[in-house]
């Protein structure tokens, strides 16, 4: 399944990378008093953009009224901006070939990077973000940061999300022996 190409650069072991993420999360708590998380930045960006571009269409004022904190461009927003930059630099540093490969099972179901595949990605991304904001966290905010703190909400969210995704993956792509 996994490509067996040997590549240069630091370890790719999940344990080494996982330890790195744990240390990074600890550093985030030390320096910013909060942990790794991705989706709250999307919510505040949507609210800020909505206020600027289409306040009536997005009814952003009733959102702002219902929220206790005003959205702003902050640590979390820049974290979401830094993420693809870091990934880009890491890929370049180890001179990995530019690749647009997708999951073989998913490509079989929706095609690889065709119109259907891109439309399903858009829909999936929208649904996922909507769910993340209902729950106030994602795989990072709940799955890693919340469970690290033994937060009850995260200990409910993470297994429930895993089971739902597992069922949906089986339903969409089958068992797909490989």
């Amino acid at each position: 399944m996994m490509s067996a190409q040997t590549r240069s650069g630091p370890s790719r072991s999940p344990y080494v990378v996982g330890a790195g993420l744990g240390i990074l999360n600890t550093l985030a708590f030390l320096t910013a008093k909060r942990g790794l998380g991705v989706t709250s930045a999307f919510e505040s960006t949507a609210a800020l953009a909505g206020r600027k571009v289409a306040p009536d269409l997005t009814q952003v004022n009733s959102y702002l009224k219902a929220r206790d904190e005003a959205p702003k461009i902050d640590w979390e927003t820049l974290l979401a901006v830094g993420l693809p930059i870091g990934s880009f630099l890491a890929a370049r540093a180890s001179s990995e070939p530019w690749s647009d490969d997708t999951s073989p099972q998913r490509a079989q179901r929706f095609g690889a990077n065709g119109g259907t595949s891109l439309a399903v990605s858009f829909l999936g991304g929208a649904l996922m973000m909507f769910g993340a904001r209902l729950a106030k966290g994602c795989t990072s905010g709940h799955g890693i940061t919340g469970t690290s703190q033994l937060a009850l909400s995260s200990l409910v969210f993470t297994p429930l999300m895993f089971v739902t995704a597992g069922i949906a993956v089986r339903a969409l792509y089958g068992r797909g022996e490989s």
Partner: protein
Amino acid sequence: MRLLGLMTGMAFGSLLQRGKLARQDVIIDQFALRDARVVKTMGTAVAVGAAGIHALVAMGLTKKDVKPMKVGGVAGGAVLFGAGLALFGYCPGTSLAALGEGRRDAMAGVLGMLFGATAFVRLYPALVPLIDAGGDFGKLTVRRRLLERSQASNHELARGS
């Protein structure tokens, strides 16, 4: 603070890229139970992070940042999130990392994520009762709950049963 966020994000992105988590096949294979890379990575991150964060809290250098346990929001959100993740093949963090690797599926999905966030903002006032449905247990951690319980039972013991 913003520069700090940018640097944290860059480190986060490079770790996800190194860990092969910016790949759709790795994510989907995890949920199809063909490959355990995601669980191994997350499990290690939680073990190391839990030790680090709790040590910092004990030293008074930070405080916990816990999301509220609102039953409707957390349970409903988890189900929608899982379904969306299966369709997309990435989670939010890994999709941003995949964006940095130039994957087109990820670009479409990140646009979808912006759309989803906008829809959430638009519908938020109507969603509040749904999020609060089933109760709000607040920013509870299991550790604190256990402590409260043991204190309560100690108290009862002290009162002489």
